[in-house]
Each structure stands twice: as C-alpha cells, then as structure tokens.
C-alpha cells in the first residue's frame, strides 16, 4: 500500500512530533528521514515505533519525514496514525 496524497500531522512544539508523508513511485520502497532532539537517548525506540507502524499499515512506497521534539510513544503513534489516514484520504470527522 502507498499514500494517495501528501499529508502531515503534529507540530514542532516540545513533546510533539511532526510527520510529513508523500507517495513514492511503485516498487521504490520506503524512504525515511528521521530526526529527534532526543535521538541519542531514545532514537532506537523512535525508529522501532515508526517501522512497526509502517508495517502495521502495510506501507511500502512511502517517503516519510519525522521530526521529533521528545514526544511520548502514545503521541508518536497518534500523530503517525493521523498522518497515514490523511495520506490515504481516510480521515473522518474533521474539516480538510
């Protein structure tokens, strides 16, 4: 599966994370650009969460940029889910 449209979620504020997602050409795989203000301490965990979520949504041909400002795991997962649903044009109950 791949994103239909470019989408983003989250903010640059402290304890938050921003995700930017866009589709890539078929069979081109994942391109991940991940940065975090706490990369040294929690980088491995942050990377793991993102890969797990990409697998959960079966996302293959995707360009994902993540900029983390120390978000907790439930925040990372919430922002990721929102970005993915927006990129699939599946978000419900909001104004676009």
């Amino acid at each position: 599966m791949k994103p239909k449209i470019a989408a983003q979620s989250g903010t640059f504020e402290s304890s938050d994370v921003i995700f930017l997602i866009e589709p890539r050409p078929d069979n081109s795989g994942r391109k991940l650009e991940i940065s975090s203000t706490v990369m040294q301490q929690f980088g491995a965990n942050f990377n793991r969460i993102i890969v797990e979520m990409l697998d959960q949504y079966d996302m293959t041909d995707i360009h994902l940029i993540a900029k983390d400002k120390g978000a907790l795991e439930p925040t990372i997962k919430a922002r990721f889910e929102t970005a993915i649903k927006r990129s699939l044009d599946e978000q419900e109950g909001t104004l676009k």
Partner: protein
Amino acid sequence: MLYIPGNNPAMIQQGGVYGADSILLDLEDAVALNQKDAARTLVRNMINVIDFYDAEVCVRVNHLSTPFGLADLEAIVPLQPSAIRYPKTESGEEVAELLKIIEQIEDRHGLPHNKMTLHAMIETAMGVQNVFDIASKFDRVDAITIGGQDLTADMNIVYTPDGAGIDFARKRIVMAAKASHIDVIDTVFPDVNDEEGLRRETEYAKRIGFTGKAVINPRQIEIIHDVYTPTDEEVRKAYRIVKEFKINSAAGIGVFAIDGKMIDAPIVTRAEYILRLANVTVG
C-alpha cells in the same frame, strides 16, 4: 476543573501535576476545525496511559450536529473516562438521543451503562430554559455546567466582568442542579492575569451555589481551591455542630442551641457538607 486542549500533547501529559480536582480534555472549542481528527486520536491514545493522579478525567466532545461529534463518541466512549462533557445541551430530548448513541457504542464494546457519567453544558438561551429537564431526567447526568462565553454570544450580549448578562442563567442552572441533587460547575474566568477578579467571581459563584469552577490556566487552580476549601474556623464550628447533634439526637432532642444560636436540621446538613469537603468525620 482544568481545561486542556486536546491537540496539545505537552499540556495533556502535564495535566495531572497541577492539583486540579478534574481534568477536561477538550475536543471542542480548543481544537481547530482541521485538526479534529488529530486531537481525537491523540486524546484516545493518551487518556488511559497518562497518570492524572487523583483527578477525575472528562472529555468534551463536539456536538452531534457537527461533522465531528459522532466520531468523537466512537473514539472516546470505549475508553470510559469518568465523564463525557456535552456542549450546548438544549433539551432533555437531546440528552436522550445522546445517551442512546453512547449506550449503543457501549453495547458494541460490552461495557456497562452505569460507569461513565455525562456532564451537560448549558450554553444557549434554549438550554437555560430547559435546564431542569436536562438536569433531572437522567441518572447518568451527574453535573451541569454553564458556558459563559457561548451563552453571551447566543444572547447577543457582551460578557462583562460583573457577569450581569448571565446572572439569571447562573441562578437558574444552580437551582436546577440543586433540585436534581447533582453538581453544578461555574464557567471559566477568561482573564488569567486578573487574579482578584477570579477570586471575586469564584466567591460569588460559591455564594450562589456552584460546587466548583472551571479554569483555563493552572495558575487559577490555587485561588479556586482557596475559595472552596472550608476555613479551619468553619470546620471547627461544623464539627461542634455535628457532634452536638449526635449527642442530642441520641437523647431524643431534635433542636438545640450552641452559644445561644438555634441549631436545627438545615444547619446540621450544611455542617455535614462542610465536613465532607474537609474530609473530616465525627467519631
């Protein structure tokens, strides 16, 4: 009751540390229309993970007439916060319809109908007119609140620090709550820099019967607690009244005097309420 914007993770994760009796995670007015999905998902993920200590946790959903209300309920009801706060409640029929939807969601998730309660916000002239129906007809409605800003907007008047325009509404809402034996929470005080104004308004709210007050900034919590916490003198006096009442009741005496002042049932009831607030029991 501390309002926390539902799309702000930093504020949500810190929400429990300020000592508020109740936390309100807001999906309604504090969230931009194009961020409703993000806030809903964030609150859903955070609500049962973050430690809010002893605070009651409520979620204010959007009204069912908006494109967001039903999605909010579908996401939040399965998590069973202490309460759902419903904005701009205007009639008993509206509450019945809301509860029907909530119970359908609970049935799908195998949840009971008696755990999570409902707080109805009265924010329109129509809501004020119908407040007794809203407060009295449903076991799950255990609090009503007044939303001062929306109410003044609905009345086409300007909100003033003296609260003149909403005074009738305040008193009518309090009376409906008292008649229904449920809590009644006063509206927020919007000027976070005016601490004296906040104290004055809170003292007034307490005097006319509100059982608490909503806040939009943690700085406001201490003043509200200070106003609502009984003083040592009030607690001592209440303790003496209840103790004397017990002694006299055991002797078959209903009305008695302390320091020359008659003590009867209403005064004992008020003293018992003060002791409950102070968490004091009479042995």
